């Protein structure tokens, strides 16, 4: 009977190795390579990644489109003007008012012209005679900038807080956890709207930071601030469990500095989670931005964003439904593509993933 010293069973090591991957062909390949291999086969995820990239590229082309195709800026109104369609002069926004004492309702902007007006008003005009296509692209630029920007900031701070809390534990962990709890306890949307509205009046001018009232930084920072615990909490949990693992102790016992342990030992191990969170939180933030802008607490006029465009369009939904429909479709498409891709990414990085967004 084997009753002594069985800790060194070397077959176990072999078994562990075998259990890691059943496949001889991919022995020794890095997990990133494996993930990439899995992702490469997920055509749906790749297709949606392509959709997202296409949207980003399109929006980046906004200035080119505005200059060379539509010949108008995103905030340039054309009330009272006309344009040429098939040789005819068409008012951009229909005329209304009193003629000979008779009242005529007006103010209906022209609908999508596609290419009938030589690149003008491809997607129609809004109630101020602005080119919807141009605003859509610039609005997309703003929405994406806020979505991605706040995702970067949010993920970065969540990561730093999680690393500090998870690595140092004790008091540091306690303080950071209570900070997370506090933001968590706030009614998030209410907090975001309150902050967005308060800051949009005069901007933020404290602690040597100066942000002007119309700045995109306001919604970006507001969104990233309120969402920090949503990523920070799960990351902290992961780090806490990692800390118990031997290789961290090994690194510690070899006298590695805290920074080294954090960044070269802990960080790579949560990198895949961070990547997935990052993708999904962009989607989430684009939705949040749209909601804030819809309530007037996000992007400030005249700058467009998809949310403000929907808000502006809702007053014209019966006579000019495209004003609200088109930016909505853009949001859905963008968010959907990020969600599908993020999903695929998660499946690829960790087939039995525990990484999950708590929204």
């Amino acid at each position, binding site marked *: 009977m084997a009753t002594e010293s069985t800790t060194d069973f070397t077959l176990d090591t072999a078994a562990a190795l075998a259990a890691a991957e059943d496949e001889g062909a991919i022995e020794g390949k890095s997990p990133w390579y494996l993930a990439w291999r899995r992702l490469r086969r997920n055509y749906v995820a790749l297709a949606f990644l392509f959709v997202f990239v296409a949207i980003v590229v399109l929006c980046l082309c906004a200035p080119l489109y505005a200059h060379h195709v539509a010949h108008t800026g995103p905030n340039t109104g054309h009330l009272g003007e006309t344009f040429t369609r098939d040789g005819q002069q068409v008012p951009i926004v229909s005329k209304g008012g009193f003629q000979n004492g008779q009242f005529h309702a007006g103010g209906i902007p022209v609908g999508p012209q596609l290419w009938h007006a030589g690149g003008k008003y491809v997607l129609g005009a809004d109630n101020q005679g602005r080119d919807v296509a141009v605003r859509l692209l610039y609005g997309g630029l703003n929405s994406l900038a806020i979505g991605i920007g706040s995702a970067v900031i949010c993920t970065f701070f969540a990561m730093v807080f999680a690393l500090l809390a998870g690595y140092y534990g004790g008091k540091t962990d306690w303080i950071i956890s209570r900070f997370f709890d*506090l933001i968590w*306890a706030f009614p998030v949307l209410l907090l975001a709207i309150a902050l967005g509205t308060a800051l949009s009046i005069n901007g933020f001018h404290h602690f040597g930071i100066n942000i002007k009232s119309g700045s995109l930084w306001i919604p970006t920072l507001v969104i990233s601030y309120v969402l920090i615990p949503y990523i920070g909490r799960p990351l902290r949990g992961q780090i806490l469990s990692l800390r118990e693992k031997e290789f961290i102790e090994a690194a510690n016992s070899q006298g590695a500095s805290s920074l080294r342990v954090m960044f070269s030992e802990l960080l790579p191990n949560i990198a895949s989670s961070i990547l997935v969170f990052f993708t999904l939180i962009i989607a989430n933030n684009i*939705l949040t931005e749209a909601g804030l802008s819809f309530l007037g607490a996000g992007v400030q006029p005249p700058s467009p964003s998809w949310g403000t465009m929907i808000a502006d369009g809702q007053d014209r939904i019966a006579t000019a439904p495209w004003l609200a429909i088109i930016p909505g479709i853009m949001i859905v498409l963008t968010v959907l593509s990020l969600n599908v891709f993020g*999903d695929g990414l998660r499946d690829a990085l960790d087939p039995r993933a525990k990484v999950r967004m708590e929204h």
Partner: protein
Amino acid sequence: MISFVIRRLIGALLVLIAVSFITYLIFVKIPGGDPAFRIAGRTATAQNIEDIRQKLKLDAPFYEQYWAMMKSLFSGSLVSYSSQLNVVDQIKAGIPATFSLCIGAAIIWLFFGILVGIISAVTAGRWSDRVITVMALIGISLPVFWLGLMARYLFAQGHPFAFMPDGGYVPFTSNPWGWFTHLLMPWWVLAILFIGFYGRVLRSNILDTINEDYVRTAKAKGLPYKRVMVKHVLRNSLIPIVTLFGLDFAAVIGGSAILTETVFDLKGVGWYAAQAVQDLDLPPIMGVTIYATFFIVLFSVVVDLMYAWLDPRIRPT
């Protein structure tokens, strides 16, 4: 157990105080928003404004003002700056609409979320799963206010397909059928995101749980498939859903339904909050924030207790 609850409740109280204080700080320095001037109106005399300033202790240090505001809030005498309506009364008046909306939507999203999650998990990989996955992903990608706008436009506003009443809230007590029909669209609009979300979470929970050793044990015991699925897989997969549900429900009750209420003109607490923020009206903002935070911390305690009840491993002894 009791000490656990007491500890959590004390923690919750501290959080409430902190949240209210931070909210106060955010709004106390709003430029141009002198409440005395707003109450007095544009015809006010200097005397008038001075009286109001004293009544509201507007010249006192901000912590005293904060304390005065909290005192009047909890004694139920806090009034709004822009209308002098009692804040607590107004929140109370919004509760029927908000609760009707949130409870109805919660029932829908819980039922359909679980249904969708189960169907797609047990048919994982088949077409039904794929269709559900696609629908769920679209569901979580829809901006709720846009969905509401489209629903209203298509189904309620004199549009050819219109068959629903357009916005507004009808109290259950005055007309139960009207209450139901007016809420049907908002319920679904609010629920759709959650259905997609819960369906996906439950699906992956079930798929994770199906691979658990104890499910294999249950099968090896010779239990029928249904019993294995219900008693072992579903029972365990639903535990995280309960947590999620508690927190989400608290959030929507606590004002996350702002967008839905605004779009459908439901005058609930969320709508009141949105108005207050637009009016930069501090007392109702404070009131609603505390109301919302109360539900959030309350439900987080409830969720902890539920969790302990559902999962014996974390039951405090």
